[in-house]
């Protein structure tokens, strides 16, 4: 089957976004929705497509092969890799729920046993320190949690009220601290592993937050991407936020936010219809590390800011 001509598939840059090249050899579906990198073997990539199932590359995207699985023909919205055991993968499939593989994608099991039926699942996050703990964002049901690798799920949305969650991020240093981007309710925060939630974003009230990111080097720095008003930044763990939209369309829909692992001053975002953008924060590091550890927590890492509007 020839891939639809209107889709363009996957692109790769090796120069920080100065130029991109299509890397679609072997793909039979170019509606690329989700991509994930094996953290221990970065040349190993997983790709989820819309109604085309899963593909895998072992050579940094030079070529792809279809993964035979129950996901064939399914719409894959997200791929999550266990950071401690990268052969364990979770895939979020539209209208299906969560699939899990413990052998690098050779076999899969549906982990939706007690998920509420009829709900669309939008986002999945894994606790980096206790990876059997998962959080699942489900449209119409808000937030669910599993503490056994997806075997069972239970609601985890006390305090979210009427605001359905759209996205979720976990503090990598303190995984009991979570942030949820909601539909029309801004950002909510939990400091008890999702048991209770409170609004963390007066300025974002009314905004729908579809993407969230936490600076792993300074976890009080957060980024929230909205579906129609660009991107916001917090330097105080969600207490206050400011727009950082210079250079973006005022109505930008932010689908993904990336921070460079070795230098989180380099930010990348993906948007719904305006492509990719890069920003470099003006950072003054009083004690630069010549060989930074991406997992390190850096205290006293001041960021140069503009005035609040």
């Amino acid at each position: 089957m020839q891939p639809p001509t209107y889709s363009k598939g996957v692109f790769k840059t090796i120069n920080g976004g100065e130029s991109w090249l299509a890397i679609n050899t072997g793909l039979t579906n170019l509606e690329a929705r989700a991509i994930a990198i094996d953290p221990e073997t970065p040349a190993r990539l997983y790709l989820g497509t819309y109604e085309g199932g899963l593909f895998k590359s072992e050579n940094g995207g030079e070529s792809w092969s279809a993964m035979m699985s129950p996901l064939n023909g399914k719409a894959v919205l997200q791929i999550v890799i266990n950071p401690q055991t990268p052969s364990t993968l979770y895939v979020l499939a539209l209208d299906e729920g969560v699939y899990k593989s413990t052998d690098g994608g050779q076999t899969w099991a549906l982990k939706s046993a007690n998920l509420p039926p009829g709900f669309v699942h939008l986002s999945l996050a894994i606790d980096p320190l206790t990876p059997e703990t998962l959080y699942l964002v489900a449209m119409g049901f808000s937030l669910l949690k599993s503490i056994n690798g997806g075997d069972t799920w239970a609601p985890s949305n006390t305090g979210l009220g009427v605001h359905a969650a759209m996205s979720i991020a976990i503090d990598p240093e303190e995984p009991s601290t979570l942030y949820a981007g909601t539909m029309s309710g801004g950002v909510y925060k939990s400091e008890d592993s999702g048991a209770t939630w409170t609004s963390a974003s007066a300025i974002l009230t009314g905004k729908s937050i579809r993407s969230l990111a936490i600076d792993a080097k300074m976890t009080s720095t957060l980024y929230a991407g909205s579906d129609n008003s660009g991107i916001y930044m917090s330097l105080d763990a969600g207490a206050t936020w400011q727009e950082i939209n210079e250079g973006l369309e005022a109505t930008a829909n932010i689908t993904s936010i990336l921070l460079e692992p070795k230098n989180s001053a380099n930010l990348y975002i993906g948007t719904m219809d305006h492509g990719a953008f890069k920003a470099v924060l003006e950072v003054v590091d009083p004690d630069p590390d010549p060989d930074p550890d991406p997992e390190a927590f850096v205290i006293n890492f001041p960021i140069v800011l503009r005035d609040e509007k």
Partner: protein
Amino acid sequence: MKRKALSLLLVLFVLLAMVHTVKANEPIVWTAINEGLEELTIGNMAIDPVETDTLYAATHIQQRRF
């Protein structure tokens, strides 16, 4: 007297901390990086944790339910 001196020291410490963390008024400016990117709707991106100039963008057409 001792209490006043301590209060003064505390105020000075807070002021110094503010100067240290907020140093200028440089805005954060986004620059489009779309050369060669033939589709501008990005569903998801990923960055290589080792070769951090290497990024991937999964693109698709916009007219979809999710």
